[in-house]
Structures are given as C-alpha cells and as structure tokens.
C-alpha cells in the first residue's frame, strides 16, 4: 500500500505544483497589468519540452544532473507528511524525521552542480556558483528557526511538530516565522533573491545548457520540490493540515505571499543577497531563538 501512497503523493505534488506555477505566472502578469497565460501554461511548456529532440550530448554525467535533482526533490516530498493525523499521504515520514528532510533538500542542488559543471557552459557554472553561495546564506536563518521549532515541540518528527501547535507557530513565535520566511522566499528563487537563474544576467543559469526532455524534467522537479517546500513550511509554522482543503489553502496563501513579495522587489546582487540573509533574518532568528528558549512555550 505504501507504493500507492507514494504514487498518489507524487501525482498530487506534480499537478498542484504545476498549477501553482501557472498561477504564479498569471498572478505576476496581473501585477504587471497584463492578462497573462492560462494556469496550465507551465504544464504545456513542460510537455512540449518533453517532445523535443536533444540537439547535443555532453556525456552521461551531464544528464545525471537533472536526474539527481529530481531524485532529491521526490525524496524530499516522500519524507514530508501532507496531513498530521492521517495514515494516508504520510509517505515515508515514519522512517525519517526533519533532519533527513533538511539533508535531502541539499541533494538536488549538489547533484545539479556536478551535471552543469560537466556541460561547461559558463552561464551554467556561474548560476551554480551563485546558487551554492546563496544556499549557504539562506540555510543559516532557516536552520536556526527550525532548530528552535524542534526544541519548542520537543520533537524532530514533522507530523508531531504540526500536530502539537495549539496556537500556530507563526503567531506563537513570529520572529522565527519571519526569519524562516525570508529564507523561504530565497529557497523558492523569488526576488530579491533570484540570483541563480537571473534572466538577462546569467540567462537561465544552471538550466541554460539543458534542452528537451531534461529541461522538462527540471521543470517537473521544480514544481514538485516547490510543493514539498510549501508543505514543509505549512507543517512547521502554520499548524499543518487535516485535509486537502486545508492543505491547499494554507500552501496557496504562503505561495501567494511569496509571489507578491517577489513581484514588488528588484533583484539583489549575489553578495548583497548573502549579506542580507546573513545579517537581517539571522539576527531575527537568533533573537527569536532566545525568546523561545527563555520564555518557553
């Protein structure tokens, strides 16, 4: 039965992720006073790329990059329970806790870095360098916030953390939430932290040498991974979800916030984004950690 459960989780994340990406493009268009594409546009793009023929080969390691990235995204999804009470849609979360999820979230970018490095495209390498630099900066506040949440809940199990919130953590520990939210905006690749695939600067960054099926795979994993990260944030800070309706509206509110945030701000330079993430959210997270440990639950 667990196979069926995992398949359902993957299918849900795939379709919801793509519809969220379509909404992202549509809502951003509305912010810019455009009509914008349909909400299925990203799905169309992905399928179209799947039907294209590869024009070039850089050897097997080049193609392994997107596959490792997709593996990282899908494994992350499997270890995050969608609901805190239900047996179904809990995936493999009984076999691994938050530490494993944080580790798996790093697997994809590192695998992709190897693949892009083999490709030799200078813009790809620049994108990867920017991505890893940003990764080190955004992890700092996020990990402090997550450690504080774990110590508050006295557990590293995601379902337990989600279920144990009488007042949701976003309100009970707002400083931790704000710090994690800055990191989350960076994790979702939104402005002002969108230095990795920065259009005009490094073209599409790590993806610039990929075409056809592998670009399609990259888009799919991005949709799945985004949904996994949204579910993780909902579980840690917004009190988790008890059913699909609750999960969808909570993830959507969070996603809408990220879109709106990204639509307003311009892009940082890479050093600026690192400086900002290390200074502002980290300090907020440390203060939040002190509050949480000193005054407790």
């Amino acid at each position, binding site marked *: 039965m667990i196979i069926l459960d995992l398949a359902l989780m993957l299918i849900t994340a795939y379709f919801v992720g793509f519809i969220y990406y379509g909404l992202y*493009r549509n809502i951003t*268009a509305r912010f*810019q*006073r*455009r*009509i*914008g*594409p*349909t909400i299925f*546009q990203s799905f*169309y*793009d992905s*399928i*179209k*790329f799947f*039907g*294209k*023929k*590869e*024009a*070039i*080969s850089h050897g097997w390691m080049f193609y392994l990059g997107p596959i490792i990235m997709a593996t990282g995204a899908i494994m992350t999804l499997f270890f995050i329970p969608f609901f805190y009470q239900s047996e179904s849609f809990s995936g493999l979360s009984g076999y691994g806790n938050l530490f494993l999820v944080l580790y798996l979230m790093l697997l994809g970018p590192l695998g992709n870095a190897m693949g892009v490095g083999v490709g*030799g495209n200078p*813009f790809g390498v620049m994108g990867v360098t920017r991505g890893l630099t940003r990764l080190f900066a955004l992890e700092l506040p996020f990990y402090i916030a997550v450690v504080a949440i774990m110590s508050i809940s006295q557990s590293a199990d995601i379902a337990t953390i989600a279920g144990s919130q009488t007042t949701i953590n976003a309100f009970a520990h707002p400083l931790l939430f704000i710090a994690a939210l800055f990191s989350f905006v960076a994790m979702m690749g939104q402005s002002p932290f969108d230095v990795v695939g920065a*259009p005009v600067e490094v*073209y*599409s960054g790590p*993806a*610039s*040498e*990929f*075409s*056809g099926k592998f*670009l399609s795979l990259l888009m799919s994993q991005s949709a799945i991974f985004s949904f996994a990260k949204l579910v993780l944030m909902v579980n840690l800070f917004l009190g988790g979800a008890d059913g699909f309706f609750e999960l969808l509206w909570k993830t959507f509110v969070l996603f809408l916030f990220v879109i709106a945030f990204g639509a307003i701000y311009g892009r940082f330079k890479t050093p600026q984004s690192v400086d900002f993430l290390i200074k502002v959210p980290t300090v907020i997270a440390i203060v939040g950690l002190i509050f949480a440990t000193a005054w407790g639950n």
Partner: protein
Amino acid sequence: MDEGFLKEQQVMESDLNSETSHKSSVDFLMDWFRRRSIFVLAYGTGCGAIEMPPTFTSRYDAERLGIRGAATPRQADVIIVSGYCSYKTLRRIIRTYEQMANPKYILALGSCTVNGGMYWDSYNTIKRLEDYLPVDMYVNGCMPRPESILEGFMALQKEIGDGKISSWQKYEDNYAFYRKNQEAVLGQTVAPAYDADWYLYDGGL
C-alpha cells in the same frame, strides 16, 4: 544536384507536396501542446528587434498566447530574424539556429528578409533569407507593428497545430543546398557542419 534554379525551386516548393496530416495520435497531441507553448529566442538581429519588447511586455502581452522569451538557443522554439541580415549576423543566426533543438521554427520580420528591401544593393547583406535557412512565417512591413507580429505568431501557431510545419526536416534533408548558399556568402567562416557534435570537435571546451 545541389545547386541551380531547379534545385532551388524544388527546395522552396517541397512544403507544398509534404504530408500535411498528423502521423499519429501522439503527434496530434504533441502538436496541440507545441502550439500552446512557444519559446522565442531573445536575439535581435536587425532593426526590427525594437518591435519585440512591446510585443512581449504589458501593452501587447504575448504571454497570454503562450509565447514567451527563452534565454538560450537550447530552450527556444522560434528564432525571429528581425529585419536585414548582414553577413556577419547571418553567421551567428546559422550557428544559433543549429544549436536549437528540433522542432524549431523561424519567423522572419520585414521586407528585408523577403527580398533585401532597402538593402537590395548593399554589399554586405543577404537578400533572401529563404536561401540560407528555412523560413516558416514571414511578417510583412517595415517595420511590422507588434499587432502584425502577434498575427504572424498566431498564424504560426495554427500551422504548428495543424501539423503542417516541418522546416527543420527540410533543412536537414536539403542541407547540401543550404550549406552551399551559406558558403557562397560567408566563405569558410561559416559554422562547422550541421551535426550534434560540432561543439565537441571544435577545439574542445
């Protein structure tokens, strides 16, 4: 026979005799997706490039038709040859076109791509783009307004959806013809021969 008027006529008219119906239901489905998702290479080759920013930004908003810019040739479906084409630019266009993944399309803007336009007797521009690369759709005008470009895109989408376009196939089938024309104006400075491995055999990375 790779040259001469008869060959040229044969290449130009090969579309007319080609199979226009879909080969299978998978082709039908893929064409349905292809016409709804068109990535345009953001590469301005001539003066017509000035009409592309308004086409893609808020005023004319090409994204509502599924048309958006692509950052690199690898991800692009359409390359717009926007106006007159000097020999130097042609070399880049050929190289860029050959880096794109199949299926790929060419949209040519303005009268300069049809017959040279006001550059008819210029010493360093080509006259008919069709001699060097397979053009899928011409948009007339000097310069065509964004409305015309969108019309051109919609016509292209319709042809893609009907499964009528196979210009990349035409380019591969008649490569000797196109290559000869390219070499006639560019000499030996033309891009390496059209195959997947030029990148690897071109002096390495």
